[in-house]
């Protein structure tokens, strides 16, 4: 026992040291983004990238915000409706696929699930043609539709797994009391769904906000969400690197805040992506 305690006294500090070293690796990019963003234009210098700012300035953030503001706004106009619609669709689907199985429903569910893994390059040409024909290419509405549809597999999966935990006896009891399929949803299933909704809302918010591929082919310069705008800003020779860094931090902020305040739910959505996780 004493040797074990001694061993712990030696290994603990080593383990902390390893954890701290790893933490530095994960925080390094954020450190650079932050100190660069907070320097004055005069102080910005690639060769002094790692130095702390002598005083706090917001010039870089203001310059980046001027560039990105309309696109941040586009992102929110895109992400808020699409995550709300996605979660409602997912909830109804999950309810049916877990509690109202019909002939071949499991097979159909599996086919739906496959849609979550496909590389979107394999449907991109028809998608662009189709949206063009519907007159939705270039609009935020079109992009919302696309995120809702390609979000069906994951949102259905999360809610189906979630509702699998609602005891069937509860629904049976509701049925004996005379509730139909919709009544059971309204009075029993939906009120129990709040945590499921939080997980799916956060997941879809993050997915749609961070998307680049759909956005880059389906929007135009007035409707670009922030990911596309940031990439174009970073690719141009005109915008200084320090403004790019501030822009990157600005663009990361909405999902970072969600992660900081609602990380627990974020993690659950992540795990659902691992199918059986």
């Amino acid at each position, binding site marked *: 026992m004493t040797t074990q305690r001694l061993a712990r006294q030696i290994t603990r500090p080593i383990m902390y040291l390893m*954890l701290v070293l790893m933490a530095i690796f994960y925080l390094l990019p954020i450190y650079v983004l932050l100190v660069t963003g907070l320097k004055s234009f005069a102080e910005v210098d690639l060769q002094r990238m790692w130095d702390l700012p002598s005083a706090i300035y917001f010039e870089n953030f203001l310059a980046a915000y001027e560039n990105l503001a309309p696109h941040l706004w586009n992102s929110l106009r895109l992400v808020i409706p699409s995550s709300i619609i996605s979660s409602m669709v997912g909830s109804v689907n999950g309810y049916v696929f877990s509690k109202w199985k019909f002939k071949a429903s499991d097979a159909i569910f599996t086919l739906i699930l496959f849609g979550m893994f496909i590389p979107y390059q394999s449907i991109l040409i028809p998608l662009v043609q189709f949206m063009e024909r519907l007159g939705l290419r270039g609009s935020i509405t079109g992009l919302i539709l696309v995120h809702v549809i390609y979000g069906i597999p994951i949102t259905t999966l999360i809610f189906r797994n979630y509702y699998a935990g609602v005891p069937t006896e509860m629904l049976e009891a509701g049925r004996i009391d005379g509730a139909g399929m919709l009544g059971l949803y309204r009075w029993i299933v939906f009120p129990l769904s709040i945590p499921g909704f939080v997980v799916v809302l956060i997941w879809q918010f993050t997915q749609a906000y961070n998307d680049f591929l759909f956005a880059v082919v389906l929007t135009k310069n007035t409707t670009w969400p922030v990911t596309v705008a940031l990439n174009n800003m970073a690719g141009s020779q005109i915008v200084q690197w320090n403004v790019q860094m501030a822009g990157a931090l600005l663009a990361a902020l909405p999902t970072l805040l969600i992660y900081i305040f609602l990380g627990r739910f974020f993690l659950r959505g992540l795990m659902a992506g691992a199918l059986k996780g």
Partner: protein
Amino acid sequence: MSASQYVDTMEAAAGRLPERRRTVFSDRAISIALVIPSIIAIAIFVYGFIGWSLRVSLSEWTGLIPDYTFAGLRQYAELLDDRRFAIDVRNTAIFTVLFLAASLSIGLYLAVLLDQRLKGENLFRSIFLFPMAISFIVTGVAWRWLMTSATGTRISGLNLLFQNLGLDFLINKWHLTDPPWGIAFIVIPAVWQMSGFTMALYLGGLRSISEDLREAARVDGAGEFQIYRYIIMPLLRPVTLSAIIILGHISLKIFDLIVAISQNNIALDVPGVYMWRTTFDGNNYGQGAAIGIFMLVTVALLIIPYMVYSMRTETEL
């Protein structure tokens, strides 16, 4: 007899069968009606569009106007001879192998460290996981400035940090290293972003292994290392499988990170980027569709066996 059948029988005995039957039938109809829109949407946007892409990939279509003249497998044959596509396949292979190896080992390493019930566990876990919330574009922009290859008086980024710390032997050209190894450096930001996820998966697995099991092994005289080697690692195999599937399909589809870091550098090209450039910049729709279908096949080879396995074990439970 299930409760619902029991209710049906009781209601039949009470002479109320027709009404009950009708409600049960209409409940079924409602439930199917509720999922039909989603089923149709997926049927069109996933399966219909895959079929449509396949048709484009078998056509002559180059230029802005659709041209479905049948070209057989010409687009695919041309890809086989295409030097850029050969670079893409090689890059994907290098990237996938290194990305999986690094994410799995770092993820497991972090999970085992955090499983020691040290103080500050939550803080460390949050630090390792937060990059997951950020888009690949942001990650790419940040890391492009960290991985600058300039040397001498213009040295900056991580190279500058290494110089300041006296670690000059670590200074290198990062993703601008001569092909094929430039792509290996793009694994670093990818691992930065995704290893926390692997850690979370492993930590979940470790926490589900009961303390009793470890205690029993300790009583039998096993050391901590042996416990990990012979008891815990075999139990974590399903977690490793899940992680390989998730990270593997992300890696085969990698796109935004490469776009943000490489800014059109052919040496760092991957199929996802090539498809996008050749289709929407070059108007080579037939070729773009062929690359898209190629990507689908590689991902399907990974995903379908796993889905079949997953569904089977689920029905067994």
